[in-house]
């Protein structure tokens, strides 16, 4: 089980995330829009919690992040995508409570199931799951994410 870390949610990060998805919905950036007021304030796109990667001290897919020590090794069993032969196979979210700018989420990840499958083109496929809870400063669980990563024995051919 990875060490939990804090993910402060800020308005600029939400705006940039929405923008990267081509999303101009004011509910993700304009606090004065009627739609935002109706939503109880700025909310976050459905996949926004992915950007907690910026705050994950052990996040391995940011090789140029400035660090005091060496970069963490990529864990092949960590779910999600990976370098080289790793790919992100599935992603699932359950939404329990809205996330707003100003929230500080505690991110807690635990390993899930692991299984193997024979691939059609890439040899044996090794699947692994990780499950992440995003809990806000009031102790309210906001989002549960389940990520499935797959490692192939050789590069996937197109």
């Amino acid at each position, binding site marked *: 089980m990875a060490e939990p870390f804090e993910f402060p949610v800020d308005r600029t*990060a939400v705006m*940039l*995330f929405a*923008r*990267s*998805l*081509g*999303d101009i*919905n004011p*509910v*993700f950036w304009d606090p004065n829009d009627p*739609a935002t007021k109706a*939503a*109880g304030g700025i*909310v976050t*796109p*459905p*996949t926004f919690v*992915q*950007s*907690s*990667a*910026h705050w*994950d001290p052990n*996040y391995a*897919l*940011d*090789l*140029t*992040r400035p660090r005091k020590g060496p970069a963490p090794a990529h864990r092949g069993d960590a779910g999600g*995508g*990976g*370098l*080289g*032969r790793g*790919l*992100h*196979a*599935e*992603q*699932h*979210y*359950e*939404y329990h409570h*809205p996330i707003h700018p100003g929230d500080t989420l505690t991110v807690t990840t635990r390993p899930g199931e692991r299984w193997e499958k024979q691939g059609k083109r890439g040899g044996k496929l090794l699947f692994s799951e990780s499950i992440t809870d995003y809990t806000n400063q009031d102790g309210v669980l906001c989002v549960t994410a*389940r990520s499935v990563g797959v490692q192939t024995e050789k*590069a*996937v051919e*197109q």
Partner: protein
Amino acid sequence: MTVKVGDTHEAVVVENIQRTHIVKYAGASGDFNPLHHDDTLAKSLAGYPSVFAHGMLSMGLTGRMLTDWLGATSLKKYGVRFTRQVWPGDTLTAKGEVTEIKDGLATIKLVTVNQNGESVVEGEAVAAI
């Protein structure tokens, strides 16, 4: 939002996706896997023809179709399988169909296809209606 079983919705969520789109998602999400921005490494490290988009970019774009259709705060569940890679130049269309309504919750079957009609993302969402 009022929907009924059989209702469908679709939207072109990105047209002719550029490396710049992918890089912008990398910056926003924090996923700097070089397979998504470094053509040289994508070819040499893993034998891919070029960089390709993060699966999570396809999921995020598909999510935009959902929130535009059903509202930004209605989703209860959203899950996908990544079925095919998205390459620079691809155009993606996200499609949803209401398959069940029960206890105020609509189940939506999802598929996002490229310009050849091949699925890149398949999944399901549950939204409060």
